[in-house]
Every structure is written in C-alpha cells, then in structure tokens.
C-alpha cells in the first residue's frame, strides 16, 4: 500500500519535473526560433498580422544582402579578433593571478580578492564616461585594441576567481613532490599546474568569449568605424533611414549565434564545470 503511494508521488514529481524543463526550454528557445524564422521570411511576411509562426515562403535575401552590401564580414572578423584576443589576454593574466591566490598567503588577501570580484558588481554604464576619457587620452578610441583591453579587464576578475577554485583542487603535495624531484617553482607551474588546470583554463577561455560576444554598450560608445566595430554594433546600424531591416537584423543575429552554439554543443562537458566554479568533481 505504502509502496504504491511512494511510487505515485515520485511519478507526479517526474511529470512536474519534465513539464518544468519543457516550459523552460520553450521560453529560452522561442526568441531563437523567432530570430531564425524572421531571417528567412519575406519582408511582407515579417510584418503580417496575425503573425506567421511557420513561414511558407523561404527567402534568403536577408543573408545575401548583409553579406554583400552591409560590410557584415568586416564586423564579423572584428568580433572574432576582439573576443578571442580579449579572452586570451584575460586568461593569460588570470592564470598567474589565480595561482597566486590559490597557493600563496599575502597581505590583506581576502580583501584584495573581494575587491577584484567587486569590479564585476559595478554596472558598466557607471564606468563608461571615465573609460571613454581615458581611452581618448590614450588615442585608442575606434581602435580594435580598446575593446580587447576592456573585455579582458571585465572578465579578468571572473577568470581569477574561477581558476583559483580549479587550482585549489590540484593537491599541494603534487607540486611539493615536483619541487623535491629537483625542479624549480616556475617549472612546476608550467608542468603541473597548467596541464592539470587545462580543462578549467579552456572552459574559462570559452566562457570569456561568450560573456563579451554580444557586448553592445562599450562597443557603440568606443568604436565608430568598420575598423573596430563589432557585430552587435554593425547589426544595430541596420536600423537605418529606410525603415528597420528586420530580416537582415535577424540574419546577422543567426550568424552571430552560430559560433557560440557550436562551442556549447562540442564543449558542454567542460563548460558545465567552468560555470559551476569548478566545484563539480
């Protein structure tokens, strides 16, 4: 008697559980679906009322136009260069920072670590004006370097914190043993910490790219030509004088999303650990 009751409860729980998942998937995938269909609808279908949920006529005009006439390839290339460089920079500076935080005791360590993280709490808009003035003074406005430096800086605290927790999991004895083998501390960093922390480092590299891939605020304020502008800004430019080019905007959105989706699909396993601060074994 009791057993069946337990079973029914767990069945109800299972149904609720899956229902919840389905609703969440629906909520998260709906905008993506809408973007995808908008990008292949004809311009009249886009503004049709009632809305057309499943397009009957498929039209790739949006893709062709943005690729051939709107300098999208240049923006695309800028986005890739800026985000990969920024992620490399953040990881390159974050690794030694995280190692120091994980292995050394230093003056006011807890406060310093909290201060580093608190940079992430700041609403970006509050720092916008001083950053603009600073980079103007450095003559870097509308230079690809400006976004690379800012994106790297914004992600650095996160990289330090997450990689610290990854490095904390590498047993101290392993490094101590390597030192006793006769190797230097620097060599143990490169031969023990870097290889064993590699999954975390790779995850953080990709997460850095995700976090700034669609960044808009700094990009639109600090860049104004094809030389440095990224896809989000390039896409926004399509909201031009002759009306909003919805199919072209959606086509840009789809193209911008493809690399991120591919990375998530192929590296899901590592990313989950990265997102969960390395606490999952």
């Amino acid at each position, binding site marked *: 008697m009791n057993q069946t009751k337990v079973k029914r409860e767990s069945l109800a729980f299972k149904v609720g559980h899956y229902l919840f998942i389905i609703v969440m998937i629906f909520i998260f995938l709906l905008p993506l679906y809408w973007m995808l269909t908008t990008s292949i609808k004809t311009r009249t279908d886009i503004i049709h009322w009632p809305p057309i949920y499943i397009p009957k006529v498929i039209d790739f005009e949006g893709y062709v136009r943005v690729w051939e006439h709107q300098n999208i390839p240049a923006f695309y290339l800028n986005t890739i260069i800026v985000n990969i460089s920024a992620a490399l920079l953040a990881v390159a500076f974050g690794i030694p920072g995280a190692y120091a935080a994980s292995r050394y005791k230093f003056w006011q360590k807890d406060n310093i670590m909290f201060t580093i993280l608190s940079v992430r709490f700041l609403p970006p808009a509050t720092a916008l004006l001083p950053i603009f003035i600073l980079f103007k003074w450095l003559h870097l406005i509308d230079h690809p370097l400006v976004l690379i430096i800012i994106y790297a800086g914004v992600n650095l605290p996160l990289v330090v914190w997450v990689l610290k927790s990854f490095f904390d999991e590498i047993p101290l004895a392993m490094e101590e043993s390597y030192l006793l083998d006769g190797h230097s501390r620097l060599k143990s960093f490169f031969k023990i910490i870097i290889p*064993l922390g590699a999954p975390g480092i790779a995850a953080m590299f990709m997460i850095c790219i995700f976090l700034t891939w669609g960044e808009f605020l700094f990009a639109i304020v600090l860049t104004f030509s094809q030389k440095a502008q990224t896809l989000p800004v390039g896409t926004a430019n399509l909201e031009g004088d002759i009306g909003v080019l919805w199919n072209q905007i959606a086509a840009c959105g789809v193209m911008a999303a493809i690399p991120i989706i591919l990375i998530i699909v192929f590296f899901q396993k590592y990313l989950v650990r990265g997102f969960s601060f390395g606490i999952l074994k």
Partner: protein
Amino acid sequence: MDRIVLDNVSKSYGPKKALDNISLEIEGGTFVCLLGPPGGGKTTLLKLIAGLEQPDSGKIYFGDRDFTNEPPNKRDVSMVFQDFALYPHMSVFKNIASPLYAKKLPALEIERKVQEVASFLRIDRFLGRKVTQLSGGEMQRVAIGRALAKEAKIVLFDEIFVNLDYKLREQMRVEFKNLVDRLSITTIISSPDPEDALSLANKVALVHEGAILQYDEREKVYNEPADVFTGAYFGYPEMNMIDCSVVMKNGQLLIDADSIQIPVRRNDTVAAGAYVLGIRPESLLIGETLSTPIVIPAKMIFTEVIGSDTIVHIAVGDHTLEAFVPGIHRTVSHESIMAGLDPKDIYLFRKDTGLFETRGV
C-alpha cells in the same frame, strides 16, 4: 653519511603550534620512525626536513651545513607522500624519471636508471601506463620508485601505509623493510601505527602535540618508555594503566592497586608514593592454572579477535584490563579465570609528572 640535526625548531600555523622548540639528531644511515597520533606534528617535521616548510625559529643542518633556508630542489632529500602525489597526466615512466629530468641527465641514462628502479620494485611492466590505471599498491611502488630514482641520501615517507588495505599493508611492510635494508640511505618514516615502528625502524621518535617525547632505540622505547603517553602508545594493544600507590607494609614495599597487590622484591628500585602501574597486554597471562609469581582471580568480559590473535578483556576487581593471547579464543561472559603476571615485566610511572620511574620490581 650525513647526520640530520634539528636545533630548537619551532613552527606554527596561525595560532596553532605544530612544532614547539624541538631538537633531534639523526645519525646518517638510520631508519627512524616518527610515531604519534595524527595532528601531532609528524608531517610538519618531515616537511621541514624536505624544505617544503620553513621553521619560524631554529636551524636545520645536514652534516655541518646549515640548510634552514635552502629550497627543496637544492636539498638531497626525496619524499613519498601519504596520497602518493603521482602526476596523473604523466606515464609511470615519466613519473619515475621526473627527478632524473631535473638533473638534466642524457636520455639514455634516464632510460637505464628508470628501468633499474622499476625492475627493482617489480613495476617494469607498467612503465608505459598512465598512473591513473594502477591499483593502490602499484601506485605506492611508483611513488617509492620516483623517490629512489633521485638517489638522495635522505628519503622521507609520510604515512605511506595508511591508504592501503590491511592485507596489502602487511605485504608492503615486509617488502618495504627488505628494500630499505638493501639501500644505504637515511630513512625517516612517519606513522600513527606502532606496528610500523616496531617492525621497521631501528630508532623511534614519539611525536605528540608538537613535542618529541622520546627518541631512542626501538627496544629502549619499548622497555623504558619516557612517560605514560609513550608507554601507552608504543605497543599494540595499548598498555594497561592503573593508578596505584607504593606503600610500606610490614617492612616490605608493596604496589597497591586494590585488587592487584605486587610486592617489591628489591627495595632500591622504587620509593613510596603515588604511581601509575603499567602492564603490557602481552605480559598479562590468563588461564586456569598459571605458574607466574603473581596470580589474581579475574573475570572474562569479552574477547576481540584481531587477525589471528585475540584480545581478552578481563575484570580484576574494579579494573578492566586487556590481555593479548595468540590464536583465536571463544567468548564466555563472566567466566572466572586467573590472570598472571611477573613483577619483572611491570612498568611504574610517577603519578604527578607522568614520567617513567622503573620497569620490573
């Protein structure tokens, strides 16, 4: 071979004193066991010798040279860690070869030395494998192999038997003893297990609460433990400890612990006063008829079988004592039995200081 000298060494972690002003001199070529309960400072002591930690005060010498501030990679010391600390991203070969790479030896020489160490430890067939594919015992051999490959004069072993299961521990202990006997190195092993100290080491240092209670030959520590703690800890099962007093009765000194009365045969060995009487379980005999000088009626409470030996818990008056009996014996509750002991086997410690007074009366 160089001796190791620790001179008034102290080390604290925050408010916790791990080692409090200890001095120790280890002759070259000795096999020393640092024995004591966990958290007593054994590992800290090993790390100070290895150079992985710096003492807050005091000096460390190898031979006559001051090594206190030398980093680990400049010391002629290798160490096997409790959890082996193998490099999981390297093959068995590369793990063992690691100290040889550090010495920048030519590749052929490295190959030869790794082969030599591996066949010595009978792990040569694993050389190509990843260390994560090995069993606990094999991992331990790789860890020992890596430490031996360095060919250091001092090799430290930090509680290396703790992570092995009972059967494997017995087996590794024998192998380990044979191995160390064949090498001419100074060996320091730390262990919470008195059996390690008894079966392996020449010398034993009792490390407890940041202090070295006694450093002596194994037999000496067994026969003349420095204090109550050392006496109780060094030996398995633990020594029975009973509060007693030594009194003069009819011109004869007598150890009086209520139901246990032991006459002192030689009056010069001990003076009247309050003491703790120590009886080792292995010198407490039980049976129906006994021929020991002292025979006391007792009751059996229960028996505890350990391996193929039995610890018999008996009640003598108000005292509960443990007796060690080889072989497996049945449990009979409250069976009347006789307990016997020889006054030459008993220990006396001073009640006030806990220090050793005499063995045998």
